[in-house]
């Protein structure tokens, strides 16, 4: 057994390395002088992620080059996942700006906060580029571990700790199940490399024949483990508490980026490695998608706390995205399934981080997070109310907004794959979701304001909200290039 000692292809690693460098710099500045860190951390995190975003252009993703053997794949899928992760990371940093601007929760170590946030972004980028199961798992864990700590960041507040504990325990449990599934896959195929697994399975699985029970077990364990990570029903139990308990900017972040990591892992594992089993898992995902969207949207109606409501609405959106994956057709030309999910995640980042951002904006003005707290917002702060209305309507799927296009492409993928029932379910559930999204809008515009209002200036947070609102308004109309990028996925995953 000769040793193969090969240096990695550094040029492929530039974007994640920039993120890492930013983390190290943040920690170093914080270690040297906490006062300097308080001033420079936020701009540093923004600039670092922007640089990483720009550096995405330096890599030739079309070639699908690999490095570290085949552990790291620089392909189209990795590009889109990195893009979404970095964009959501930047938006989350902007939303977190309240921490420096008005001291939302005192005693926050801003540099640590941002370093953990960037660790999570880095982990998500690694999941997107993973070429084997170990790297995928490590990326997934890194994206999650940092968020466990972030959820408990307001460690004086009991709800924050409670949410983090639930998130952590269930997340660790899910990881154990996931690893067990991976071990089975390795035992049955003799490889942890995603493309090799697909290759081996193609030779042993004949379509139409019943599966080997061991393969079925592996598939089920993987589906359960990944289901926890993306908060699909019935593995969603941690979601509402974690979303409600976490500091609001963290809720904004954790509603998007760990989900991106989860869906990237689902795509890498199911679509790429277990592609020969697509008959089995597509049906499974379809059922999961249906119960997830029904449960999330129906339970959200009963919520009076906005963060909790958005938590349930996030479960509903997971359902829509799962439906997009369930539209996977093995080998049909022009398959839109994974592309539509990627686009959905991209759109979801803007509108959901935005919605949480408005809540953070309100909290800094001394208001709470319930429906009563947004009452009469239109009279007090017309711009904020308008922004929130845009996010709510977009989450609902109102036509010219970004959220509509996201749903539209998923439905298109479903119709092309012949899964009409799921397409109908999405439309019906969007109508149901109108109930609780519009309730926020009516509260803002047709109610009398209550509570105490403490005017403060939060220019960076305002800038972030404006950016997201404009993106939600306009990106839908010019969604072509992003969709184009997302539709390159078959080159990467098959």
């Amino acid at each position, binding site marked *: 057994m000769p*040793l193969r*000692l090969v240096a990695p292809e550094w040029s492929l690693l530039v974007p994640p390395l920039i993120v890492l460098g930013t983390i*190290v710099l943040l*920690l170093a500045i*914080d*270690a*040297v002088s906490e006062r300097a860190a308080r001033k420079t951390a936020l701009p540093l995190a923004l600039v670092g992620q922007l640089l990483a975003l720009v550096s995405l252009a330096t890599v030739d993703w079309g070639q699908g080059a690999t490095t570290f053997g085949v552990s790291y794949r620089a392909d189209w899928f990795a590009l889109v996942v990195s893009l979404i992760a970095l964009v959501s990371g930047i938006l989350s940093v902007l939303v977190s700006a309240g921490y420096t601007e008005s001291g939302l929760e005192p005693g926050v170590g801003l540099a640590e906060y941002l370093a953990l946030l960037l660790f999570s972004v880095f982990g998500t980028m690694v999941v997107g580029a993973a070429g084997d199961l170990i790297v995928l798992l490590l990326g997934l864990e890194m994206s999650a571990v940092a968020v466990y700590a972030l959820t408990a960041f307001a460690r004086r507040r009991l709800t924050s700790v409670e949410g983090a504990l639930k998130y952590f325990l269930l997340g660790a449990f899910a990881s154990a199940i996931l690893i067990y599934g991976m071990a089975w896959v390795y035992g049955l195929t003799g490889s942890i490399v995603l493309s090799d697994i697909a290759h081996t399975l193609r030779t042993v699985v004949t379509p139409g024949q019943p599966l080997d029970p061991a393969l079925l077990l592996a598939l089920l364990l993987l589906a359960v483990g990944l289901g926890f990570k993306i908060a699909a029903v019935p593995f969603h139990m941690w979601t509402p508490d974690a979303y409600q308990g976490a500091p609001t900017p963290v809720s904004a972040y954790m509603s998007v980026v760990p989900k991106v990591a989860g869906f990237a892992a689902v795509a890498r594992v199911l679509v790429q490695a277990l592609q020969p089993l697509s008959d089995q898992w597509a049906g499974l995902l379809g059922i999961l998608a249906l119960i997830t969207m029904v449960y999330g949207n129906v339970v959200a109606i009963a919520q009076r706390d906005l963060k909790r409501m958005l938590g349930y609405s996030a479960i509903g959106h997971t359902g829509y995205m799962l439906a997009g994956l369930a539209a996977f057709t093995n080998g049909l030309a022009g398959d839109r399934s994974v592309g539509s999910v990627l686009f959905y995640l991209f759109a979801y980042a803007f509108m959901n981080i935005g919605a949480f951002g408005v809540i953070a904006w309100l909290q800094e003005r001394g208001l709470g997070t319930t429906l009563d707290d947004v009452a009469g917002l239109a009279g007090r702060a017309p711009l904020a109310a308008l922004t929130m209305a845009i996010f709510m309507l977009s989450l609902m799927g109102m036509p010219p907004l970004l959220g509509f296009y996201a749903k539209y492409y998923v439905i298109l993928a479903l119709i092309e794959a012949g899964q009409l029932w799921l397409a109908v379910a999405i439309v019906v559930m969007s109508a149901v979701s109108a109930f609780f999204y519009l309730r926020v809008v009516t509260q803002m515009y047709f109610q009398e304001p209550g509570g105490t209002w403490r005017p403060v200036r939060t220019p960076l947070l305002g800038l972030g909200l404006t950016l997201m609102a404009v993106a939600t308004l306009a990106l839908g109309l010019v969604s072509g290039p992003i969709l184009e990028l997302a539709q390159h996925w078959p080159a990467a995953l098959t």
Partner: protein
Amino acid sequence: MSLVDYAVIGLLVLTSTVMGTVLILVGHFVRPRKPTPAKLQPYESGVPDVNPPRGRITPRFYLVALLFVVFDVEAIFIYPWAVAFDALALYGFLQAALFVGILLIGLLYEWRKGALEWV
């Protein structure tokens, strides 16, 4: 290494287990038993027990324990490198150095942040 090579260790484990069990059991059955309150105390001599033995421990120990686990896991990853050191040569050394270096960042950071202080 075949299984037979572990027979010695197995014998050791077996002997110590049997011996410990037997000694405790023999003591249990043979010794006289005349309990008094003082004898039933966890510590019979010296300072009386003023606290229940399971008093609270400050959470400070917790941080130490957590950091201990992190560096314990680090040691585990360095172990196979140390064993295969000669075959891996400079390449392996650089990698192990990078591995330790990344964790050194964490150690320096927590040192600087006062997490190692016993306040």
